[in-house]
């Protein structure tokens, strides 16, 4: 019994330490933000690697999620004779929820895991130590540009996901199931509120961008520098990011849309 309590306490302390180290790392990354202003090329390289290289998976997913929404929405709405509101349903679902959340999950799987593996391998192959010995701060040079690249890329990817999803829904609803084209777009234009729906979706994706990139960088920087350590850290990045995104989505939704 005492042993079990001691073990629980020890795990709690270890978790608190990890949390503390993670926050200190975030602070150090933010303190180095001047680096991305002084060397914008570093940021652009990372926006390409983190953002542009994620475009394909996000775009394809967006189209298919929109198509599925169009199909499912049509069958449900047509039972109430409300299929004309399909455009609103597709757009609201995408802009408010699915756009930011699914993009964040895809981002964690594609870019987050790559960030963790890259930084973990740089640690395992002593590249981070070599930077230290060359009097170059690896947090400012390696982590800060990647962090801001993630934060910039996520809202753009989420916007692209939502836009392509709306087009996917249109293709199924209007193109295949015969909803009136004008109704699809005009209902959407009337009912979707820019501030309440679009801006809140952008805020969500920004928050998810910060959290997912932070988790990915921390896991890479703090990993055990062995092949097994890097592999475990990469797994943790995807799992922790997914849980954080889903949990935060509930909190943010309650704050934004709750009475």
């Amino acid at each position, binding site marked *: 019994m005492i042993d079990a309590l001691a073990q629980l306490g020890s795990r709690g302390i270890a978790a608190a330490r990890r949390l503390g180290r993670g926050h200190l790392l975030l602070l150090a990354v933010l303190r180095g933000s001047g680096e991305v202003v002084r060397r914008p090329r570093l940021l652009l390289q990372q926006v390409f690697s983190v953002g542009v290289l994620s475009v394909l998976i996000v775009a394809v997913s967006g189209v298919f999620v929109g198509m599925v929404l169009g199909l499912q929405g049509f069958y449900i709405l047509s039972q109430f004779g409300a299929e004309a509101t399909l455009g609103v349903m597709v757009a609201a679902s995408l802009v408010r929820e699915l756009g930011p959340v699914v993009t964040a999950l895809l981002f964690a799987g594609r870019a987050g895991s790559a960030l963790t593996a890259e930084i973990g391998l740089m640690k395992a*192959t*002593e*590249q981070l*130590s*070599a*930077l*230290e*010995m*060359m*009097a*170059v*701060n690896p947090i400012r040079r390696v982590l800060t540009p990647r962090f801001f690249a993630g934060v910039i890329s996520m809202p753009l990817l989420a916007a692209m996901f939502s836009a392509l999803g709306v087009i996917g829904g249109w293709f199924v609803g209007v193109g295949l199931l015969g909803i009136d084209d004008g109704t699809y777009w005009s209902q959407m234009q009337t009912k979707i509120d820019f501030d309440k729906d679009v801006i809140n979706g952008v805020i969500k994706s920004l928050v998810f961008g910060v959290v997912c990139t932070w988790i990915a960088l921390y896991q890479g920087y703090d990993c055990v520098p062995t092949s097994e350590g890097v592999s475990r850290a990469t797994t943790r990045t995807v799992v922790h990011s997914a849980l954080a995104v889903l949990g935060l989505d509930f909190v943010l939704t309650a704050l934004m849309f709750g009475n």
Partner: protein
Amino acid sequence: MAGSCPLAALPFAMTDAPPLVKIRGLRFSRSGRTIFDGIDLDIPRGKVTAIMGPSGTGKTTLLKLISGELTPDAGVVEVDGQDVHRLGTDELYRFRMRMGMLFQTGALLTDLSVFENVAYPLREHTRLPEDMVRKLVLMKLEAVGLRGARALMPAELSGGMARRVALARAIALDPMMIMYDEPFTGQDPISMGILVQLIRRLNDAARLSSIVVSHDVKETCSIADHAYVIAKGRIIEHGAPDQLFASRSPWVRQFLGGLPDGPVPFHFPAPTLESDLLGEPA
């Protein structure tokens, strides 16, 4: 120096210059295991100093303590008269521009070519025009015999070539000292011969001070002016390589002679074989 070492009186009494690295009362432990238990050590200027000892004795840790990457539990590490562990972050980074380090793996930046790897510290810390950077990089690569490999990527280099490129990068800013972490491990005889010769030649030509951490006794002793042998958290012997080979310490004799059993036992601590075979399964 060096506690109870019988050769303690010998090393640098002949030179008046203060040592480049002065370590006093260094204690360091990690995960409850004592790595250094109050060691004193001097690294002289302009010499090649070897730090040898069996694997896991903390040789690389010692380099990290000298470079300020790790902080000791107790004791002082002075480099060129400055206590490296009392420096602020910015001061420490400025100080490191005067140190070079060759890592065991080379630690080249894998997304940069050989040329860009060597140019990296110059681009980071100087505002030299591009043609000057090019000339300096080519001179450094010429010094390690790899001027012709400047366009290659790190993945295209052999282990020995990667270390030579890393050496060119380490001397790019003309440091006062270079630390070599196991430079000979896993090298074929030709690469090893090249590295041995390079370390000595660069030390003398560029008036560097070199610290070579290694357990390759023959190669290290062939270029070292002075050597320390570390085991069990203490310095067990030091002196010129000839003096080490004449040492009566059983630790030193086992290490230098490559004997399988001795103070470092062949068997990992365990119950007796009889009790293990006849007793309850673990």
